[in-house]
């Protein structure tokens, strides 16, 4: 459109890029310029600074369009009529100052169309001066920037929403951090976090309480240098420097140490190398359980039981002896009834004796304090001897032993004999109607194997697992064969302590076979 105008008219007054006015072309040129102004999408006005209140003396078509006013409603007004009642905008002072100083300025302000609709007006104002430098007119160029402003405002709004969301999330993060930290502080176990250089990053309250130190003298210090090097413990170093790098996490690591002020502590450690993507790497979390007191209580309990069993057995020795004397002194003329009574008394004294032994065994095993005295011995010979002794004591059953295992086994002989005795006496006890018990020795791969088979009542499949539990006794047997029911539990623990397995195969009515294996390759077992 603009191009067409230039083709139809010649702008005589514009020569060499400058306007020069000649009488005959003025009219035509002016009309052309006005058309150009009216084609602009920016609103353009002229105000007369020489008249009071700087009235608008010219506006183009775009100004009418932007403001919604007609030309006759515009001319003569001061620009501020577009602000309607919204007079508090700080941009007005910028405008006022520019008018006073005769300077240029750009402001963005809220203006209102005739119908009251808000529009954002970007106003560029520029003075026109005469030769003396007096400001005669101002040119105002206006652009409706409502859409841009709206986008800006929406952006701002979004930013505000986002900011408040961030604040909220930060708050809830902080809350959950507080929550976690309150858990960490409440826990009755000492917790330490180290960085890869073994500097203490944080400890919890329980740590401070247990080791009687303050947070200030602990956090930020090197672990090994804490409290004059009282944490410079060989086993702890071993854990942190040699074990943890290749085994993560490490659990139940026992460290014993004599601390200068708090004395000897037995500690159970769990250590965990932790990494949080992008935040930190190779931090070490150590949880320390102080088991000093617990171990001491266990030890006292074991001591108590040892003493108790010793003291109980002492009078039992006398009783047993006298019963045997009585049996001997009994004249042949005495009735069978008295003989029978003495025999039974002897049997029950024996039972009392084995109950005391079982009680002690169970207590030791329960606390894991069963000590193995490992020595190399002739395994087959020991089993043969045990079988002979058992055979000597039983008149009802015939014990047959076959096969070979080894003449050279390293383990706790007395414990293993205890197992074989238990299996043999079970086989005899629970198969009262049969006459034969078979013992079979063999070697399977790098294990030795011992099986004890009876032809007794057998064990139901659902009860086979439970018979190795403490205090479990096969239901109906409970009434017929009283006892504490820890024999097989103790046997199972003993075999496990030697790295072997104890199991049963049985069918009700067809007898039971109890078997155990023990690893022959002692060195390999230890390495595991």
């Amino acid at each position, binding site marked *: 459109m603009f191009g067409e105008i230039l083709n139809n008219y010649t702008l005589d007054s514009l020569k060499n890029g400058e306007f020069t006015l000649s009488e005959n072309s003025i009219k035509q040129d002016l009309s052309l310029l006005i058309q150009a102004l009216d084609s602009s999408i920016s609103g353009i006005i002229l105000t007369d600074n020489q008249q009071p209140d700087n009235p608008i003396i010219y506006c183009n078509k775009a100004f009418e369009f932007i403001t919604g006013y007609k030309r006759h409603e515009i001319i003569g007004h001061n620009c501020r009529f577009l602000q309607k009642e919204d007079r508090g905008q700080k941009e007005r002072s910028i405008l006022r100052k520019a008018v006073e100083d005769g300077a240029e300025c750009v402001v963005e302000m809220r203006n209102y169309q005739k119908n009251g609709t808000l529009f954002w007006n970007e106003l560029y104002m520029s003075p026109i001066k005469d030769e003396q430098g007096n400001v005669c007119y101002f040119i105002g160029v206006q652009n409706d920037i409502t859409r841009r402003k709206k986008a800006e405002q929406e952006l701002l709004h979004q930013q505000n929403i986002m900011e408040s969301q961030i604040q909220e999330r930060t708050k809830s993060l902080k809350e959950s951090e507080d929550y976690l930290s309150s858990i960490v502080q409440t826990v009755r176990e000492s917790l330490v976090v180290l960085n890869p250089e073994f500097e203490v990053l944080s400890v919890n309250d329980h740590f401070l309480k247990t080791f009687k130190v303050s947070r200030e003298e602990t956090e930020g210090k090197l672990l090994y240098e804490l409290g004059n090097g009282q944490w410079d413990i060989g086993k702890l170093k071993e854990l942190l420097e040699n074990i943890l790098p290749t085994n993560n996490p490490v659990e139940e690591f026992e460290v014993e140490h004599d601390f200068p002020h708090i004395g000897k502590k037995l500690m159970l450690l769990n250590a965990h190398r932790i990494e949080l993507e992008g935040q930190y790497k190779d931090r070490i979390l150590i949880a320390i359980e102080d088991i000093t007191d617990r171990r001491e209580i266990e030890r006292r309990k074991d001591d108590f039981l*040892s003493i108790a069993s010793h003291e109980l*057995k*002492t009078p*039992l*020795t006398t009783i*047993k*002896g006298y019963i045997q*004397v009585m049996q001997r002194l009994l004249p042949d003329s005495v009735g069978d009834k008295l003989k029978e009574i003495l025999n039974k008394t002897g049997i029950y*004294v024996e039972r009392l*004796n084995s109950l005391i032994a079982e009680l002690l065994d169970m207590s030791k095993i329960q606390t894991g304090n069963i000590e193995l005295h490992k020595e190399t011995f002739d395994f087959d010979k020991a089993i043969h001897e045990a079988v002979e002794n058992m055979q000597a004591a039983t008149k009802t059953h015939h014990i047959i032993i076959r096969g070979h295992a080894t003449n050279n086994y390293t383990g706790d002989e007395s414990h293993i004999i205890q197992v074989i005795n238990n299996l043999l006496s079970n086989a005899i006890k629970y198969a009262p109607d049969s006459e034969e018990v078979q013992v079979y020795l063999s070697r399977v791969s790098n294990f030795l194997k011992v099986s004890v088979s009876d032809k007794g009542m057998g064990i139901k499949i659902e009860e086979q697992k439970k018979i190795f539990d403490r205090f479990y006794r096969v239901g109906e047997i409970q009434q017929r064969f009283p006892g504490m029911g820890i024999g097989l539990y103790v046997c199972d623990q003993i075999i496990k302590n030697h790295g072997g397995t104890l199991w049963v195969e049985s069918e009700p009515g067809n007898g039971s076979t109890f078997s155990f294996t023990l690893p022959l390759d002692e060195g390999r077992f230890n390495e595991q």
Partner: protein
Amino acid sequence: MSNKTILICDDDEGILDMLELILEETGYKIIPIKNSLHIYDEIEKQNPDLILLDLWMPVLSGDQVLRTLRKNPETKSLPVIVISASREGERIANEAGANLFLAKPFDLDILIDRVQEIIAA
């Protein structure tokens, strides 16, 4: 067979009485000692052929007594049977140098058999 002497050292009077009763019956001379502190004097005085020794005794324990006996050239090879209700009894007895260990409560027949074996040897 009856001129042999057996010294029994146990802090429990019941066991001392019972053992004395049984072993006297077999014809041995019995020296019962309740307080282990007196054992060295009695050994010197009576020169026994065998000692039955308890382990857990107040003041001087059986394994201490046994170690001392084994260090002395005169009692070095004196036969000693340790009788104890201690769980660790057998190990302690062997380490201290006992000829035999019998766990309490023991079987009288076995005790008498072993006593006779060792004295005859």
